[in-house]
């Protein structure tokens, strides 16, 4: 990167994103701390803080996160091995399917598991008919098992992504070299492959733990009232009891641990020796399973993944399309049509269709905002200076801050600032942009940095002005990453639940909020509508996932 430093221009570019970060990130967080600490010495505080609640929430958060992480490792590592080492039919389809949980909002997952294992879910319906029971025999929903299952569903894809990619990029000649130097294949794995994979395994495990630790929607919707993680407790204390000091304390504890894990992740990323020498041919490392145990292993893992990844999604789709007709079950789009009507005719219950429009509007705004800020940042941070590294760090921090903490920060800070909650919904796209910004930056910045400065100089000597260099040189090179970033931002915003749940108003809900609300209401129409809405988000996610895959595929092909 031989970019000439032009700090005046860079500072100008960075001003707007930095102001954005201060207003929408640092100040709200500081406000949480202020509200919590300012009451520390007053009697009020002692009464407000029920330490029993804090400790039970903290210990349960750790308990379920550790358990979920262990289970995820148990399934994820073998799956990563399968993806990193073997060729098999349908691998690409399974790979794409395994990235779906990555972008699937928690409400959709919750709806999916509810459709599968809930009291109205397929497994219970099947068992009830089989055994002639009146009550659902399986009550996994509202139990720890449901939480763990959903966490494994979510995070197996992280293990596959991170460890599988490291494994497929791992130069297998290193193992060959070990073998010609006298190592058996087992020794070669233990002494060469494993030490080289360790950084990526470790960072995948930490990432999984971080996501399990900060999990909100899954625990709230699948765990039921008796299970409260820090996140859920923050939400309950804020929204139900308006006990802000307690919510603040919980939030600070949460922030402390997530920052710890985030810092550990950054350290691993810095210290890890880069995985050596890419295999020269694509899939050079891969082979078909040959031995009997390899085939058994592959079939077993594929079966588990299909069951885990496909069954909740399929259950959801069927649930949204099958209704109780006069002659038993029939396929209908009734639930989808219901989305357009407002049965209650009440002011606060807008038709779900309105929620869809709100969501789309917010998603559009937030992807534009985060793309704009991301571009300014990418250009402002082209030089690798100490100040710029600090800014980069700062941008990545919202990634390590839980959505609920962000929501709480917005809730407290902007209420104090304006004295009104009326315009809260308009903060939703801002918090979504904040959450998307690190992703946008990670996608756009490396591509921009890879454009050599002499291309700009060449364009300039050929008579291009700075604006036309941007339009004719940078944009064509960047557009693929910009599309990718916009899709990420759009999808994140569409499904975001944690922060939104603090800011949405009954008359201006987003789709995830509406799904959450309808899932909690009695009656098959409400339940069916929740399913239908979840299917709509699912569809958008699938489309965006396929487009993302296509974009990556195209950019890969160009390189080859």
């Amino acid at each position: 990167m031989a970019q000439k430093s032009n700090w005046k221009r860079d500072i100008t570019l960075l001003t707007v994103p930095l102001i954005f970060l201060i207003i929408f990130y640092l100040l709200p967080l500081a406000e949480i701390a202020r509200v919590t600490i300012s009451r520390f010495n007053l009697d009020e505080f002692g009464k407000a803080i029920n330490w029993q609640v804090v400790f039970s929430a903290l210990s349960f958060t750790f308990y379920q996160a550790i358990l979920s992480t262990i289970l995820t490792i148990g399934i994820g590592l073998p799956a990563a091995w399968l993806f990193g080492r073997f060729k098999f039919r349908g691998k690409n389809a399974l790979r794409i399917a395994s990235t779906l949980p990555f972008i699937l909002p928690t409400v959709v997952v919750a709806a999916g598991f509810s459709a599968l294992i809930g009291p109205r879910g397929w497994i219970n319906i099947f068992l009830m008919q089989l055994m002639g029971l009146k009550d659902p025999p399986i009550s996994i929903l509202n139990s720890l098992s449901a939480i763990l299952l959903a966490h494994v569903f979510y995070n197996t894809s992280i293990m596959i992504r991170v460890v599988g990619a490291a494994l497929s990029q791992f130069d297998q000649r290193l193992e060959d070299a070990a073998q010609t130097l006298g190592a058996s294949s087992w020794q070669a794995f233990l002494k060469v492959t494993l030490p080289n994979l360790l950084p990526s395994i470790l960072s995948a495990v930490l990432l999984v733990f971080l996501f399990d630790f900060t999990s909100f929607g899954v625990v709230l919707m699948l765990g039921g009232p008796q299970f409260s993680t820090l996140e859920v407790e923050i939400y309950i204390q804020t929204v139900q009891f308006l006990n802000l000091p307690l919510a603040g304390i919980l939030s600070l504890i949460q922030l402390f641990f997530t920052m710890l894990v985030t810092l550990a992740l950054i350290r691993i990323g810095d210290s890890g020796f880069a995985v050596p020498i890419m295999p020269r041919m694509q899939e050079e490392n891969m082979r078909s399973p040959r031995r009997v145990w390899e085939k058994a292993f592959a079939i077993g893992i594929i079966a588990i993944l299909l069951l885990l990844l496909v069954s909740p999604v399929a259950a959801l789709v069927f649930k949204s399309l099958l209704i109780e007709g006069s002659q038993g079950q029939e396929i209908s789009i009734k639930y989808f049509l219901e989305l357009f009507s407002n049965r209650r005719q009440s002011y606060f219950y807008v038709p779900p269709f309105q929620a869809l429009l709100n969501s789309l509007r917010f998603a559009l705004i937030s992807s534009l905002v985060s793309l704009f800020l991301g571009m300014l940042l990418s250009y402002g941070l082209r030089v690798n200076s100490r100040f710029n590294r600090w800014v980069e760090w700062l941008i990545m921090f919202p990634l390590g801050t839980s959505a609920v903490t962000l929501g709480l920060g917005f809730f407290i800070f902007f209420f104090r600032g304006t004295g009104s909650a009326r315009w809260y919904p308009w903060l939703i796209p801002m918090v979504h942009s904040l959450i998307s910004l690190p992703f946008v930056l990670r996608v756009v910045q490396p591509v921009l940095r890879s454009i050599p400065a002499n291309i700009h100089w060449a364009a300039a000597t050929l008579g291009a002005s700075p604006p036309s260099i941007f339009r004719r040189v940078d944009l064509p090179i960047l557009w693929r990453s910009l599309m990718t970033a916009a899709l990420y931002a759009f999808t994140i915003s569409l499904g975001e639940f944690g922060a939104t749940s603090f800011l949405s108003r009954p008359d201006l809900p987003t789709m995830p909020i509406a799904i959450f609300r309808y899932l909690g209401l009695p009656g098959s129409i409400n339940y069916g509508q929740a399913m239908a809405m979840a299917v709509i988000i699912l569809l958008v996610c699938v489309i965006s996932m396929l487009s993302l895959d296509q974009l990556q595929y195209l950019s890969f092909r160009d390189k080859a």
Partner: protein
Amino acid sequence: MKSLVVENIVKHYDNQLLLDGVSFDVFQDETVCLLGPSGSGKSTLLRIIAGLEQPESGRVIWKGEDISSKPPHHRYFSFMFQDYALFPHLTVRENIAFGLRMRGKNAEEINPVVDRSLAMVRMQSFGQRRVSALSGGEQQRVALARALAPQPELLMLDEPLGALDRALREHLMSELRTLLKEVDIPVIYVTHDQQEAFNIADRILVLHESRILQSGTPSEVYYRPASPWLAEFFGFDNQIEGRVSNVSPLLIDTPIGKIHSNCTTNTFSTNDEVILVVKPDALRINLEGESEGFTGGVLDSIFSGGHYKMMVDMGNAVRFEFELDREFSMGHKINFTLDPNSVICYRKSQ
């Protein structure tokens, strides 16, 4: 004494025949170069000898014992990989010690050997470095030291200089040559670079289209390429088809006239269809007054260090390139003959 015997190796890759019954021997103390264009199966052959890959048929015999089904770590052969495959999580020392450790040696035995190996490749001060901090040439030396440290019975090198730039390559080539002469074990050296093969090898095997086309000392292989393809591979681009018009002396009718050859590799009879290879040193300028032979226009004359490369229009749209110790200006007409000793004749089917 034959140390290694490779017998009838057959191997496919992606349904394409890669090795079609390849056989050869390597003697103790001998350095054999497998020379061939990329994709000719050289590396695969090496991997089969190392035990990293299994042939579909054929055998690998080491000192009389069939080792075809022995796993690589029981073969006591060392392999130096293209791009070196150094272990990035280990230091230079630990890399070199790896083979000894795997053979169950303890630290007192390992340390002096590692020191000696480091000294051998003149890297004594690099022991504690991470391999990622090394330059290409340094990595190459560490890889060689790592391969030699366990005192293998056979050394295989896969394009050991392929990743280096030209200047460094030429420097390391002579170093490597000296080192390989010092170790008294058989060496199999794979390369696509003729210059490297000529420098390093006692014997060259040329591999092309799944078979060994020629085997011989560097000078045999260079001066008497066994086929027009081999001649072209070694840079003899002046080729022309013709028909034998007289057997003794051997005269060939070609589109540019009658050419005389002293080729003895084959016996020919009249009307045989042949391909002639005219080596670049074949051109003899006629003295004043001599008029036999050819007349051609000089198309280009380039000084290339010690001699001139001259493009000559031979007529009939045929252009030959010759090496000459004097310059002619462009467009100059020259009268010349072709030295029959520098004209090789092949049957067309070859």
